[in-house]
Each structure stands twice: as C-alpha cells, then as structure tokens.
C-alpha cells in the first residue's frame, strides 16, 4: 500500500530545481512521485525536463501549458485577463513552443488531466488548477472553505491537490479532509527567497494524513545564466535571483499581492 508520495508542479522548464527536488524526494523514500502539470514556461531549454521525469518514473498530469504546447495552440491559456500579464506570458509561451521537440509535444498531448490516487485509506484527487477547470485559479485568500468542501463532496475524496497559482497553501477542512496547493518548482513564490517548493503527502496511520511543504535550494544563479543566454526577459531572471515576482502580477488577489514587492 502506498503511504508516502511526493507531489510537484509548475516546473516551468526549471530543470535544475526539478533535478534537486527529485533527488530529495528519492532520498526520503517516497513510494511514488506525481507532477501536477505545466512542465514548460518561463525557464530555458524545455526539453531538458523530460529525461529527468522519465528517470525518476514521475507520473504526470496535463496542465494548461502542456495542453497548449502539445496541441500547438497560439497561447498558454494560463487564464490571465490583464494585458500586462498576457504580454509576458506570450513571450514565455512563444519561446517554449519553439523549443519543445515534436516528440515531447506528443507526450504532453497525451497526458491525463486528473489522477485519482489512494494514499493509505485516503482518497486523493490530483489536478492542475481545480477539479473542474484546468486553468482555474484557487488562491488562498479568495477561496472560501465551504467552496472547497463542495469540491471534495462533489468528487468524493479526502484531499484535492493542485498547483497552477504558483503559491503553495493548504487548508484543513471538516472530517480530516484537506485542500493542498503543492506549490511550483519553476519560480520562487514571491516571498523574497530563491527556494522553490514541492509537497510530501504521507499517511503513517489509518487516521493520519500529513502534508509537508519542502523547500528546494538549487543553483539558481546557473539557471539565471542559462536564461540570459537564451535571451529570456530580464524580468524573469530578476524573479529567479531575487524571489520576487515582477511579471504576471495583476492576477493576484489583494492579500497575495500585498506580500510581494511589486
């Protein structure tokens, strides 16, 4: 029976952070590793994440970015509505589409969009944005607890895990149920530190479901040099080396925006 898994998401082509996270999860003796989608975006050399996911037998689900790149669509379908957010999102998308091989695009195209997983006695639903829409933003400060209860009731699970927003959070609900955003590996979470995050889910006993957010330190300066060499925007590089978001900010709710620098 599976009792400990790692969930990661939002790799955004950050192959250096991915490798560090996968090594860390393996050393912790997890039973399985899941990726909740968005393999590409933002970072350099999108094809470099695929061999790592294969080597560590990571089971992936499709994010909005994977869907768009896989099908060769004209944008990422990230869900931004502000022109400034979409300006930078398009730069990232055009680069990623141009630099993802046809073989890897086929892999992205064929990934499932959700996974139901058993962890001990607990029923988990892993998805990208929300169980009902791949690019839905479920922010901590704009999602009521009774809405989350509704989602878990509707899907008859004990835990829903997502990524997509780029900022980890969790909420304990009634009857030991949980909602978890597992964070992203692709860029730091607008807190002024360069670490990125993934999540361990563990069921040590039949009544205990534990969630642990794991920081991942990696050679972010090396990533920044690679991004610079690829001609990616200075604004993206600034985020990698400072930990503050400088683009795609308008989608943030008030509380999440207030915590950042920009």
């Amino acid at each position: 029976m599976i009792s400990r898994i790692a969930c990661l998401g939002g790799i955004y082509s950050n192959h250096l952070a991915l490798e560090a996270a996968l090594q860390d999860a393996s050393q912790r003796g997890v039973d399985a590793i899941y990726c909740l989608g968005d393999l590409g975006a933002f970072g350099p050399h999108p094809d470099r994440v695929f061999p790592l996911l294969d080597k560590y037998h990571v089971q992936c689900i499709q994010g909005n970015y994977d869907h768009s790149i896989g099908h060769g669509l004209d944008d990422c379908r990230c869900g931004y509505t502000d022109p400034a957010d979409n300006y930078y999102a398009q730069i990232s998308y055009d680069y990623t589409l141009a630099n993802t091989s046809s073989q890897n695009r086929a892999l992205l195209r064929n990934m499932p969009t959700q996974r139901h997983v058993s962890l001990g006695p607990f029923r988990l639903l892993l998805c990208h944005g929300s169980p009902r829409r791949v690019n839905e933003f479920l922010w901590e400060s704009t999602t009521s607890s009774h809405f989350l209860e509704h989602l878990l009731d509707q899907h008859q699970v004990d835990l829903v895990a997502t990524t997509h927003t780029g900022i980890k959070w969790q909420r304990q609900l009634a009857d030991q149920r949980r909602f978890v955003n597992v964070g992203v590996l692709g860029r730091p979470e607008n807190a002024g530190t360069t670490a990125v995050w993934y999540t361990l889910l563990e069921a040590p006993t039949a009544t205990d479901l534990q969630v642990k957010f794991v920081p991942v330190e990696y050679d972010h300066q090396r990533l920044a040099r690679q991004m610079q060499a690829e001609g990616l925007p200075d604004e993206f590089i600034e985020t990698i080396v400072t930990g503050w978001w400088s683009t795609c900010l308008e989608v943030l709710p008030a509380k999440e925006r207030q915590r950042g620098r920009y």
Partner: protein
Amino acid sequence: MSLSDPNLDEPVVHLTHLDHLWFQVAGTLCNLTCHHCFISCSPKNDSFGFLSLATVDRYLQESISQGVKEYYFTGGEPFLNPEMVPILTRTLQYGPATVLTNATVLKDDWLTTLAAAEAASLYSLEFRVSIDGYSPETNDPIRGIGTFQRALDGLQKLVQFGFLPIITATRTWPDSEDGQILQRFSETLQSIGYQRPRLKLLPTLQIGAEENRTHGYRDSERISSDMLADYDVGQLVCEHSRIVTDQGVHVCPILIDSDDSLLGQSLDEATQPFAVRHGACYTCYQYGAICTNPSSPAASASPRRQASLLAGRESE
C-alpha cells in the same frame, strides 16, 4: 419564472454553481448621479433599499450549503449603508469580500476597522473604486463636477491604510485608445502615492442612464442559440452568480431593474435557468466576466477559449 418562450430564439443559461454571491447592499441610492449608470442610481432613486446586517447574515448562512466561493457588494454607493462596515467584517468570517465603491465618502475609522478585519481573516478584502477618467476633464462630465478629486482623495486614503484598490473605469472611448488611457491613469495614480495601481476596464451597458446618454441596444444585439455554440457560458455572469436585493434574489447585478430578473426569496429558490434575452446579456457575452475580479476563475480566459479546457479525461 423566466424560462424562454419556445417560439423565440431565446437561449437559457443554467446556473452551474453559485460561485459569486452579490449583495445590492445600498439599493439604488448613491451620493452621485453618473450619466452612464446602468441602474440610474442617485440620491433620490429608492426603487431598491438598503440591506440590513441581519438580512445579509441570513444569506451568508444559506450560502454555506451552496458552497459559495466569493461575496461582492454593490449599490448605489455601499458606504451610504450605515451597517456597511459590520457587514464586510462579518462577511470576512465566511469568505473573500469585494466592495464596489466610488470612494468619495470613506472615513478613517471605517478603514481602520476594515484593515483590522482583513488582517484577522484568511480572506482578501478587495476595494473596487469607480473612476471614469484620468483627470477632472475626462471624469467629471460623466460622474459629476468635483468627483474626480473626491475619488482621488478616497483612493489615497485607501492606499495609506494599506489597501491595494482596483480602479475600474468604464470605457467611454474607442478600444484603440486603451493603452494610452491606461498609461495616463497609471501616471495619475502614481502621482498620489499609489505605486502599483491595479486597473480594470469595463464596457458600457446601454441601459438605465446610459441609454439616455448615448443609445440603447438595437434589436439585433441579442444572444442567439447559434452564438452559444462553442462558447464558454462560464463567461456569463448568470452562469455562476446571483444577487440579493431588498426584494429577493435576482439573476445578476446588471438586470435588477428587469421584471424577469427576480427569481425567488432564497438562494435555493433562485437556481432556475435564465433566458438571456436582454441587450445587456449581449454585452456580457461580448466581453465576458465583466463583473468579477481579475483573480477570479470566472474571468480566467477570454470568451470562446475555455470550452476545450474544461477538465475531462481521468485516469487510474
């Protein structure tokens, strides 16, 4: 009931889930008389009245079983309601709250209380401030003489109290001028100390006072069944929202003046489908998610784009 006449091409939209619960908390009473107001709010328009804290509380309680995700408050001017601060404070115990205000009547002690309420809550308190031009010359002809400076003073106060208000401007200029006008807005807001202004543009709704200012909808400006093919109806406010007034629960914040908009007295009674037969429905269709915040999922992509993104395949 508002079900469609089978002899007409009037498509109906079903409420998929009540994500957003609105409150017409100040009725149609406003200290301003804007020339483009789609429900003609003014100091004398009492066709809808204030909601009390007790009434709001009753619907907040009911909203739990409906799994409502976010709460929105509008008017008129919400802060004319003497219970507005306790209403927002109470709401922040249930979920995120957004209040749409003209920012001309805000008081320091109210903002002190609300800043503390937001800090103590899991949830965001969003202020959406209506200003329709980046200068007195562009704003005041629409919203009234002196309103630009009064709104700017209110905005400055909000910023000083640590809020990050979203400025909403109704587009009364050609779409092609958006970039230039947003830049001017940004410069104006930064000049009063708002270093990271948030801006949202809204389309005009050609009903209420706006119908007199410009013109109403043509008969051809209606949603047909064909238009909804391959369209993400999640962009339409009535697919995920309802609004409480002092008369009951209506279909959306835009249509409260329409006879067919009143759907029931409780949230549970107001879940029936709605025939999108109005001209304003056409604007909602064209622009998509016009009432919600940029952070909200209903506003998460442009119209026509989301149909293919609805979660479908599963494994294991």
